[in-house]
């Protein structure tokens, strides 16, 4: 047990190091690139000047972009007047900012968005439920489909059913999720082929909230489900093939093991041997995946959310990239990396917990 403890301690120690290296790298990249808040403000100013014909904002700033003081103010506001290491430490929350307070991600302050000037965390929090909705449902649904399918394929190894579904599995492996969503949308969400069953994208209908308040719950549920199905299938595509094959191979491995042979030799009924002895052990690799799925569930997917126009974390990240809203991107990256690192350790802990034979060194 001592070896295990030191193993996990070592792993935990690696988490902050990895985290700091990655975020520092990205922070430095952001600081070195054009397109910060000043460029953003100047662009908006120019646009407003163009629409208002030189009045309004131009008078305020003397007609020539931002004044020097305004620029300095903006830089100060986003801590861009500091050097990169200091700026990073302020962002991290271990260096006092201008007002002498520690206010960084360690204190739960992720900074403010360049675009909307509201806290990054509230932006992320507002998109969070959508991504976790699809992430969780997708993950659970792929368990429901893949585990029985894998078991069945293992029991009927090399039968017609096995080869037939193998074809499906390989098809699922080779088609990226967003492409599957596109095809489904093409066939079942547009009128081109006369099979318009589902809506074309979006998380729910525009008037969903109004309908919910009006007490039209049944309509709301139906609407939500019809909006869910296409993205859900796309989400499932990602893990479908890997999980099914993992389940099948692990069950086949166990069915060939000595302890199963012994159980049969004792005269236990086949059902009991398979479902009580072999299956329990072959579920171990599947359980271990839970930790890794943590980051996946959180992060959503750029591709699927862009394809299906779902306003979740992925689309937030995509739009922030287009708008160069670096505080939001840094925040998303920090949370994503952290969850992924913790998820890896969680996988190890789960493995050690469900499988007492495992010894980490």
């Amino acid at each position, binding site marked *: 047990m001592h070896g295990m403890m030191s193993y996990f301690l070592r792993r935990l120690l690696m988490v902050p190091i990895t985290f700091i290296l990655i975020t520092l790298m990205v922070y430095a*990249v952001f600081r070195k690139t054009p397109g910060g808040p000043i460029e953003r403000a100047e662009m908006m100013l120019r646009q407003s000047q163009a629409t208002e014909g030189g009045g309004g904002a131009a008078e305020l700033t003397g007609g020539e972009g931002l004044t020097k003081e305004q620029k300095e103010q903006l830089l100060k506001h986003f801590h861009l007047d500091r050097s990169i290491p200091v700026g990073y430490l302020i962002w991290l929350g271990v260096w006092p900012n201008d007002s002498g307070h520690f206010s960084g991600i360690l204190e739960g302050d992720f900074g403010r968005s360049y675009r909307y000037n509201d806290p990054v965390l509230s932006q992320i929090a507002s998109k969070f439920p959508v991504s976790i909705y699809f992430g969780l449902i997708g993950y659970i649904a792929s368990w429901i489909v893949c585990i029985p399918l894998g078991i069945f394929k293992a029991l009927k190894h090399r039968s017609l059913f096995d080869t037939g579904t193998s074809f499906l599995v390989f098809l699922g492996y080779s088609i990226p999720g967003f492409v599957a969503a596109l095809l489904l949308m093409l066939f079942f969400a547009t009128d081109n082929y006369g099979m318009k069953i589902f809506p074309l994208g979006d998380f729910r209908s525009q008037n969903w909230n109004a309908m919910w308040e009006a007490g039209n719950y049944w309509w709301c549920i139906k609407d939500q489900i019809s909006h869910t199905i296409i993205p859900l299938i796309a989400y499932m595509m990602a893990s479908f093939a890997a999980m099914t094959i993992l389940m099948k191979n692990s069950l086949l491995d166990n069915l060939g093991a000595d302890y199963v042979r012994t159980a049969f030799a004792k005269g236990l009924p086949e059902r009991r041997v398979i479902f009580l002895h072999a299956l329990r052990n072959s579920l171990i690799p599947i359980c271990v995946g839970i930790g890794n799925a943590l980051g996946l569930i959180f992060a959503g997917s750029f591709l699927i959310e862009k394809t299906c126009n779902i306003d979740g974390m992925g689309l937030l990240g995509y739009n922030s990239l287009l708008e160069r809203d670096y505080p939001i991107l840094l925040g998303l990256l920090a949370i994503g990396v952290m969850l992924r690192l913790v998820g890896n350790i969680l996988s190890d802990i789960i493995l050690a917990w469900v499988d007492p034979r495992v010894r980490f060194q």
Partner: protein
Amino acid sequence: MLGKAIYLIIVLALGTFLTRKVIPGIIVRIGRLMGFRMRATPITKKRLQRFKSIKRGYWSFLGISILFVISLFLEVIVNEKPLYIRYKNHTAYPAVRELAAKWFPFFNISTFTSKKDFGQGGTSGVDYKLFKACLEDSKNFDPMIERTRKRVQRAEKSLKRLKPPTKDSPKSKREFYLAKKAGLASRKKQLADLLEAKKAFEKGDAYILETLYPWSPSSRRKDLGKMAFHPPSLAKGVPLGTSSNGRDILTLLLYGFRISLSFALIVAGVGYLIGIIVGGLQGYYGGWVDILSQRFVEVWGSIPFLFMIMIIASMVTPTFLMLAILLILLRSWLGITFYIRGEFYREKSKDYVQAAIASGVSDWSIITKHILPNSLVPVVTFAPFGIVAFISSLVSLDFLGFGLPTGTPSWGSLIREGLDNIVLYPYLIITPVTALCITLFSVVMVGEAVREAFDPKVFSRLR
């Protein structure tokens, strides 16, 4: 029509010959030059035999590789520029030159052919489609001639209005007059050239040999009219339709195939080479090298690579090479290091390696001659799945708009265009998605067959 069929057959036959005979020979030669023995051991022979016996994988492998080899010569198969063009004593090989320019970018090979030399009057590039139309029916010269004639008349009129300058009129006025005069002369020359060309074409003193599918991915289909979005129609000669800016989708797909596959092959090849070196060093030397570099690989692997590439691509438009390097650095070399490290670890402890160490063979020869040939199984089994992943990565990046520069024929940008027009023009989405799925599926089939052949799992069950 018959000519095209023969052309197609020649292309396929040459492609097959190159893929099956020439290229394996070249690979063996290069391997020998690098000091490897390049002879299959009995085990490898058996594995290859097993791979060949898995029909769907073997045929997918042949199909994909023959298509890829043919696509390397796409400029002389699918190109708006003709293979050969002749007018009187002027000849040119624009498509061949373009292929050469693609393959030898440092030689500065020009593909330009001037209108002046090919009886079209003017100094810009030859309009090959017009050339062809004129060959078929010399009446097609008439609008051109009419236009030039009008220009000549206009130039004459404006020249008449000007008074001829005398000796003591200012210099600028004299020069202006001379320039006008020269302009008129050149217009007249153009008209004469055109009239002469019409006669020459009627006599058959001109010739053009077009490629198999005479359209390019870089220019729009002008023959279909001004509108974009032409749905697929065999009668009009657009088997897969045109994209939103009027470019032929079939050509985009074919050139996109070459770009996707060569991108994936480069990323996988270079990445695995780095992975083999790093993993081999880790496994062979062990100790601190091993521990430190493993930690590094762990940290490096936690970077969300697609996100990082998108961040970098949002700042500078990446080129093909830059994207490949980014993907190699951030992803493709990582996965294989663990497996190679394990293989090296295992092989090093075996007797034959210990014997080689005891008899004083240098580390370098032990690694390259003894261990490496015996530890390449994971590379072979992972490569097809890696290729699938890298093709999808490129398509995803292009789809999101963070990939290759706009104008490059890529499947991802075609799919994006399809999504933007999903309601009105469904054909835009179906073709690139089908091409992508077929390609990826065949590569997966190859991968599955390779895995089955190289690393067979034998399951024994009592009941």
